[in-house]
């Protein structure tokens, strides 16, 4: 007799638990509340990333195409996977002394792990993180970038 009742109470509890679960899914089906899914890429135009978002490493340039990098190479030493190559050049300044400037600041986006050590350790805060995240390209060589813009120079007084 006991097992007879247990049989039916098990069925009852089973159905009840399923109905409880379905009441949850049903509630979300009819009143989803806040919709969290973002319609990417349709919302691409007004997509706003967080300001600290690490999309890629960039060199900060001001309006006059000037940056703060003096080619010291500290970022290259701090990078754990060799994503940065600093190629300095020597120029002769106005006072006649030769000084070191950056020739090419090469950045391999494909190897970067976004650890942030280069940005953190740059003594003159020349680097930052950019917001761009659509990095897919057809050719791997396109992932190697020169960060100092063509024709750019160092801001006076930073050296």
């Amino acid at each position, binding site marked *: 007799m006991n097992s007879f009742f247990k049989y039916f109470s098990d069925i009852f*509890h*089973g159905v009840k*638990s*399923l109905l*409880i*679960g379905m*009441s*949850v*899914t049903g509630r*979300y089906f009819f009143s989803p509340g806040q919709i*969290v899914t973002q319609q990417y890429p349709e919302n691409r135009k007004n997509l706003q990333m*967080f300001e*600290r*978002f*690490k999309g890629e490493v960039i060199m900060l340039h001001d309006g006059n195409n000037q940056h703060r990098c003096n080619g010291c190479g500290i970022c290259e030493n*701090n990078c*754990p996977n060799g994503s940065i190559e600093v190629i300095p050049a020597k120029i002769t300044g106005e006072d006649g002394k030769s000084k070191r400037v950056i020739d090419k600041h090469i950045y391999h986006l494909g190897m970067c*792990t*976004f*650890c*942030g*050590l280069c940005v*953190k350790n740059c003594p003159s805060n020349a680097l930052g*993180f950019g917001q761009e995240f659509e990095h897919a390209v057809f050719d791997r060589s396109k992932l190697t970038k020169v960060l100092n813009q063509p024709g750019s120079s160092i801001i006076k007084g930073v050296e």
Partner: protein
Amino acid sequence: MKEIINLPVSNIEEEEYHINMGPQHPSTHGVLRLLVSLQGEMVRSLKPHCGYIHRGIEKMCEKDTYPQVIHLTDRIDYLSAHINNHAVCLLVEKALEVDVPERVRYIRTIMDELARIQSHQLWWSSFGMDLGGLTCFFYGLRDREMILDIWEETTGSRFLQSYNCPGGVMQDIHPNFQKKVHAFLKTFKKKIKDYDRILSGNVIFENRSQGVGILSKEDAISYGVTGPSGRGSGWSCDVRKTEPYSMYGKVQFNEVLRYECDTYSRYMVRMQEMHESMNIIEQLIDNIPEGEHSAKMKAVIKLPAGEYFQRVESARGELGLFVVSDGNKTPYRMKFRTPSFSNLSVLDHISRGMKIADLVAIGASLDLVIPDIDR
């Protein structure tokens, strides 16, 4: 072919056959290959074959300086990235006898607990999915998104944050951080009730998990099954309680223990732990002291020659970090004792005699992360 023919007949049991589960099986959540020996539907034994995602992280660490090691530890157990980073930082700070600011301890502890919650959320999602409840997957990921947003705002990354650094954290917390964490706690407290209503009380789920995969306390200890899986067998092994680090000595929380020793009990431990983690965050979030977000460290960090060990409680169990230093700026040897590796070793033992479908439930209840096994 020849070898098979030459096998003595007595070695081949009647109706025994082998199947490969993985390395591309959806329920192994990564590239884990289980060579399962079956008799009918029953598991006779299984052999895990590891190494599909072995990247040689321990060896790579030997060429990296201590701040650089951090970004590799993210990638061991990606779901407890903060906690892994924390272990390295604690070890370096212990070796150099650096006193980190109080603020850093608060931030690290909150981040660790957020990591634990989101890891358990993802585990819950995939547990449901493995047992056929796809709804769980959507609900779990929906709620996890809030934590990822909090992280993205403060650390800049959603998944592999590399946020801790020896001496402190990389950046101070974002001004919105506290507000958003409060909003998350408020929302998730309501949502976690849905989790119980959908899965914990579900008759199908109960029948598939209760009494399945019994792991006794003795076995848990001898196999070294730590974390929620070990606590589901009644073994009190929470490093946060036994060797408190950061703020864990000062906050009130319970170590969740259950004694049924089956899959359901391991499941319930994790569900309870989410409540405990929220409890810990609530105690800390409003009291973060003002101050620096990092202690002053030398530009080049060199550990004095010697051996160091540090353990932390990651979302899967005890993470041990052993470093031998010869006084250079890079470690001479770095060894990780990862929780998933030990937890995997018990899988053969507890799934013998179970059905092949139960193997999926047991595997899910151990919450294995494959890069954590292979590193």
